[in-house]
């Protein structure tokens, strides 16, 4: 029996998507497996061993660090969330101000240009030593999220149609009213874009930072402890968890962006 593919049919489209995605992931799994066989190094274990490690971790927790798998996940997410909130609270208002004031823009530009190319993780040893093991990694993530969020907010302000500002002023709005009733809503789509990029970078930073400052749980900590012990299947469990959580966070931001775009009538 043959079923003809119909692009208009939602079910068909969904089926096609699932099928192609599944094949794609199977290819990835296959390549991984092959590489592990060809190289024969314990550092790249075959998928079944990683699966066993995962099940063991679920049932018995992490014997090396004494935390459960969920503890590690929550620890990473908590740092990530705190960093995100701080980055948002600083980058968005600052970006709005820089976008509005040419002097502030010219003044902050050299500073930002000098700092921007530095990979956030380069700050990890400094920050962990200078501040502490709790706030050091959080600040690394903050730096990772801060720059894309700031850049996009500034860009958004500069993109505001001058006509909308003019309309607001001829309707009697004063500077402050024009700021929060027109400028801010205008930049929301750009801010959302900055958030999406920032979350991606921030998620990379948190893992790296936890590997530099292995303390208090977290997936980076988990990976670095197991790598140190040579328990490679656990390292791989950690890597896969990072991928899944990263997908979830960014998917969430993606979703929020869509909803906001729809509600604000601006795509």
């Amino acid at each position, binding site marked *: 029996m043959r079923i003809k593919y119909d692009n208009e049919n939602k079910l068909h489209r969904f089926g096609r998507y699932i099928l192609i995605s599944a094949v794609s992931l199977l290819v990835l799994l296959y390549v991984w497996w092959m590489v592990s066989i060809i190289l024969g190094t314990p550092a790249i274990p075959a998928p079944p061993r990683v699966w066993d490690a995962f099940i063991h971790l679920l049932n018995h927790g992490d014997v090396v660090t004494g935390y459960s798998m969920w503890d590690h996940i929550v620890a990473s997410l908590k740092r990530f969330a705190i960093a995100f909130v701080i980055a948002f609270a600083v980058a968005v208002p600052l970006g709005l101000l820089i976008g509005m004031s040419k002097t502030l823009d010219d003044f902050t530009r050299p500073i930002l240009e000098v700092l921007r190319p530095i990979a956030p993780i380069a700050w990890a040893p400094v920050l962990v030593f200078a501040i502490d093991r709790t706030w050091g990694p959080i600040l690394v993530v903050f730096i990772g999220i801060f720059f894309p969020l700031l850049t996009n907010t500034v860009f958004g302000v500069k993109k505001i149609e001058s006509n909308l500002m*003019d*309309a607001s002023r*001829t*309707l009697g*709005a*004063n500077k402050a009213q024009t700021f929060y*009733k027109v400028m801010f809503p205008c930049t929301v789509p750009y801010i959302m874009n900055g958030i999406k990029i920032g979350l991606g970078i921030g998620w990379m930073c948190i893992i790296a930072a936890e590997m530099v400052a292995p303390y208090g749980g977290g997936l980076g900590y988990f990976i670095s402890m197991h790598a140190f012990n040579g328990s490679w299947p656990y390292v791989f469990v950690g890597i896969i968890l990072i991928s899944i959580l990263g997908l979830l966070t960014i998917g969430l931001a993606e979703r929020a962006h869509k909803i906001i775009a729809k*509600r604000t*009538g*601006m795509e």
Partner: protein
Amino acid sequence: MSGYIKIDNVRKVFRKDDRDTVAIENISLEIGKNELVSILGPSGCGKTTVLRMIAGLVEPSGGEILVDGNKVTGPGPDRGMVFQDFALFPWRSVWKNVEFGLEVAGMPKAQRDEKVERYLEIVGLTDFADARVHELSGGMKQRVGIARAMVNNPKVVLMDEPFGSLDAQTRNIMQAGLIKILDKTDQTIVFVTHSVDEAVFLSDRIVILTKRPATIKEIINIPWPRPRDRASPEFTALRKRILTELEKENVMN
């Protein structure tokens, strides 16, 4: 309510990259209360600039503009503006767009609601109060723009080619609608257009500008009552005469 505009010897020079563009060269013009004056002129001659100067969005390089004896130094709700490209707030509903001016003026909610409702009814958009801007047609968008400017009850309404992007039929409907609104209000209207037909149909006076740098070429009085008959001989004759005048200012010559 008044709305007496005095444009006194106004010049405007735009400076860009160390090059001066003289947009307006010494214009003087008085526009009376409750008058509808159209500004006609070749493309790029400075019509929008005149409106923006009255609005207070652009500062004259010389001379001054007075509204009811007060020098214009910045934008204010006493001078409403209807923009050629609508300039509606896309994150606000139709209702909230119209409400904007009342909201920033701090008017109590009940009063606001009553006013917005009345103006939406005047422009025939009551059923679209909750619609988003991007769901509207061009003509509907411009009606929102008009209601948004009018709801503030400004003394002066500045309209920059408000019907320029509409098809001929919608345009005629909008013109008729505008005349109806004018009957109910007593605002002074300055109306920029490219359409001679529209200017003759609507205006008490037509100001024809020369090509850049713009000066006043001619002012034509039209004392006929509205609504006017486009097919009447005097309408056609006047239209023809203005077209000939404008032809002489053609930038391509």
